């Protein structure tokens, strides 16, 4: 099966609609970012405190918010995450406006205790089995079990505790509503069950994730991620400049920058958060886009060696056509994996796969319609400048056909040197 055999589309001739589309998308994204007062950072980069809580029943956002507002300092936002495979889960977040680390640490403890006060049994003197650690549970059960006459070595106790918590975490998503759900735990007997019920209760919620980012770390993380990416782009520019010609490096880097900008813009338009995983996705899309661009540039370089009479635009068009089949195959296949991730990957991978879905589409066309035209524009410009004033002697081999035709000797010279 072959889909694109010997195609001959005039890609570079149709560049304008795509360039305009790119500009529109970039401007729309930038406008959205500015209008919304900056990007929506995930908690990794934003200072504040966050807990993600899974409830046994559909959560009452308003009740949670009201309870939090009474005790927690600063603004509190409660966001329902349900949908896309997630059930009864909310994210409670406070922003750290002018707060120090100590207040934020205190806030987190307060958030947990508010949950217990509102939904749990704070005065029963029992331990909440849905929100405990293995160590705490072992400490809690050790003496009561001994008093109840259940003979158990320390080793057996640890195994039991791990089995109980393992059952809750692995088979009930961290939250059980009835002690009977623990009947199947290995080593469970009625003596243990009685002690467990005497010492513990089951709150109708489970804290899944807790995060706190102090002002010092948030800024540092943002800065480091940004600089690492910029240095990586600079490194690629230098390598491509060395292998091809500097304008090729610049074209490729601008194309990558363009892809990142549009993707970030889409994040802002769709109100999605930029988290650390999204940064990893952005780095991945830079990799894809760069890969795509280099494949086309490589073909241009190869074609330039053999076809000295064609215009640069024609050479580029031929290179894009020759690699078209490969471009469609590779992008299509990677797109398949990413779309699977987007559909079935769950909430943690959602931002990540969204970035890649956008990035693969944008990255594929930017190689053809952004990176290549930049190289072409520059060569046309350089050629036009080298040409003397009208009426004077014509430049070397400059065809009279206008700006789309000229070629530049240095490309050929550099490329042959590099290929040899």
């Amino acid at each position, binding site marked *: *099966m*072959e889909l694109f055999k010997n195609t001959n589309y005039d890609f570079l001739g149709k560049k304008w609609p795509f360039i305009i589309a790119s500009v529109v998308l970039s401007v729309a994204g930038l406008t959205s970012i500015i209008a919304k007062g900056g990007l929506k950072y995930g908690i990794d980069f934003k200072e504040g405190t966050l807990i993600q809580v899974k409830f046994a029943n559909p959560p009452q956002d308003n009740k949670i918010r009201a309870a939090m507002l009474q005790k927690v300092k600063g603004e509190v936002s409660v966001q329902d995450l349900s949908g896309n495979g997630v059930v009864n889960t909310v994210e409670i977040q406070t922003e750290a406006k002018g707060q120090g680390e*100590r207040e934020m*640490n205190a806030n*987190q403890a307060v958030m947990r205790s508010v949950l217990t006060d509102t939904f749990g049994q704070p005065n029963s003197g029992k331990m909440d089995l849905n*929100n405990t*650690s293995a160590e*705490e549970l072992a400490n809690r059960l050790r*003496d009561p079990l*001994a*008093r109840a006459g259940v*003979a158990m*070595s320390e080793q057996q106790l640890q195994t039991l505790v791990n089995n109980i918590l393992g059952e*809750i*975490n*692995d088979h009930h*998503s*961290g*939250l059980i509503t009835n002690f009977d759900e623990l009947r199947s735990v290995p080593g469970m007997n009625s003596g243990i069950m009685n002690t467990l019920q005497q010492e513990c209760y089951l709150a109708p919620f*489970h*804290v*899944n*994730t807790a*995060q*706190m*980012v102090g002002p010092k770390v948030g800024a540092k993380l943002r800065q*480091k991620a940004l600089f*690492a990416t910029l*240095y*990586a782009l*600079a490194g*690629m520019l230098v390598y491509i400049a060395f*292998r091809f010609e500097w304008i090729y490096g610049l074209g490729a880097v601008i194309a990558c920058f363009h892809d990142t900008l549009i993707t970030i813009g889409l994040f802002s338009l769709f109100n999605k958060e930029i988290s*650390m*995983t999204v*940064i*990893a996705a952005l780095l*991945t899309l*830079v*990799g894809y886009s*760069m*890969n795509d661009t280099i*494949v086309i540039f*490589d*073909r241009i370089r190869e074609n330039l060696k053999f076809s000295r009479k064609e215009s640069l635009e024609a050479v580029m068009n031929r290179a894009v056509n020759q*690699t078209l*089949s490969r471009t469609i195959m*590779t992008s299509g*296949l990677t797109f398949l*994996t*990413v779309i*699977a*991730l987007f*559909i*079935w*990957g*769950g909430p*943690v*991978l959602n931002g*990540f796969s969204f970035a890649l879905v956008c990035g693969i589409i944008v990255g594929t066309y930017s190689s053809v319609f952004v990176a290549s035209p930049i190289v072409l524009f520059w060569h046309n410009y350089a050629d036009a400048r080298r040409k003397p004033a009208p009426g004077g002697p014509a430049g070397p081999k400059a065809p009279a056909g206008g700006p789309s035709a000229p070629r530049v000797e240095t490309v050929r010279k550099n490329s042959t040197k590099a290929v040899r």
Partner: protein
Amino acid sequence: MQKNLTTRAVIIVVTILVCVIGIIGLPTSKADLINNLKTHIRLGLDLKGGSRLVMEVQVEDAVKMDGQQTIERLQQAASKQGIVWNSAEVTGLSDPATVEDADHVAVVIKGVNPAKASDFRNLVATEAPTYILTTLNSTDYSLKLTPSDLSELKKQAVQGAIDTISNRINDLGVAETSVQQYGQSGADYQILIELPGIDDAAHAKEVIGTTAVLSITGVDKTHDTPFTSREDAMAKLGGVLPLNEKLVKAKPRVGGQVDEWYLVGSIPVITGRDMRSARAGQGDTPRTWQTSFTLSQEGGRKFARFTGDHVGDKLAVILDNDIVNVATINERIEDSGRIMGLSSQEEATDLARYLRSGSLPARVTTVFENSVGPSLGADSIHQGIVSGVVGTLAVVVVMLLYYKRSGVNAVLALFLNTVVLLAAISYFHAALTLPGIAGVILTIGMAVDSNVLIFERIREELRTGKGTFAAVDTGFNKAFLTIVDTHVTTVVSCAFLFLFGEGPVRGFAVTLTIGLIANVFTAVFVSRTIFNWELSGRRGTEPLSI
């Protein structure tokens, strides 16, 4: 050609074997296999669940403490020489204090008799050589640490905190924890702590941050000889634990075979907060060792009251739920005492370290926390696997449909690439995190691309009318150059990401680099070998299934 092919085949088979052993070891049963897989392919905190904490050591505490100790030292020496002053205090701390304040801390001494000025200067020079003396006016002086001593003190405070926290975390009994300097040593005062499997960071923070994990408490008078086990103790106690008492296990001694359990009071007499210092030394009689310690004023008062009432009884030194030493009270002890009759220098030094580690050199504040519950991690892994399998299957089907027999070749190369990548992760003891999976996805994408590049090139060559051998040969050679360019560019960017990024970004860079190297091997070397092997038995005119 045939010999060449054999060499290539041997290299490939050996590589596959090494990789497979790296991933699953040499299992003897199914349970063994799953177990090996779990230990070899470690999952990061974001997938497995666990806590990542960044804590800041409040180094200003240590600097302030040094200032106060200096004042005490100067006062003691001054009283012997008849030098007096009106007031001495540590200044320069804002409220609440920050780490930046550490640079402004000074000891200000006011009201020194001008006649004794030169005596005072000599006193400072001998008793506080790490301080620089500045004259404020004829009677007042200010002392500040020299810049090098200040920076050394701050570094020591951070290192001390790292040691103490490591000790405490080791005692939590969690595997694969790590405690390390975060940022640049000497410029940043932060510590990165990773606790896999602990999602309740509130408790972890408590354990790490409290200064009261060390405690000294009385041993039950009627049961002051050790029990051999918890069960033994319960049997001897008639199955009932006395009120306000608990059973604590002693840390196993070197060479000690039997477990020792003691019945001790559940309310400590003194805690790590009361401990000032402790050091090991030679005992009064030859070949014995001792550990002497000093307590704070308040701690001394409490300890004196208790030891006065319990002469002849035993007391236990407990660190993080383990008894590290049991000693008999010989006399009433106030603010300084010693634990005598230790059998080796090692035992004495260890005990001193335990006593000291009860007190962090400075407070620590959490500045970053990320705790993922194991239930969320389990869901993520499950969804990640499902989507990964669906995506991979789709790629395999399309490859086979589009490139027919040669598609098999590509799928094999792809599979091998993943195996090499996983093996490398296992051999390097790296952990697979979400950003790492991003790296794996990009690797697979580029592996697909390498194969597509090669196949498309071979097709092009076939279209120009070349024979099968020549087309395969030219196709590989021409595509190779492109593959090198794309891969080197990406590796260059990874190098920068690794150098300047951190944490997740670094994980991404490492996985990707390994994957790319594996890819050059599988897409170019292995795929080429399979083609050669397929072609070795036929003539150049037979068509290739591509």
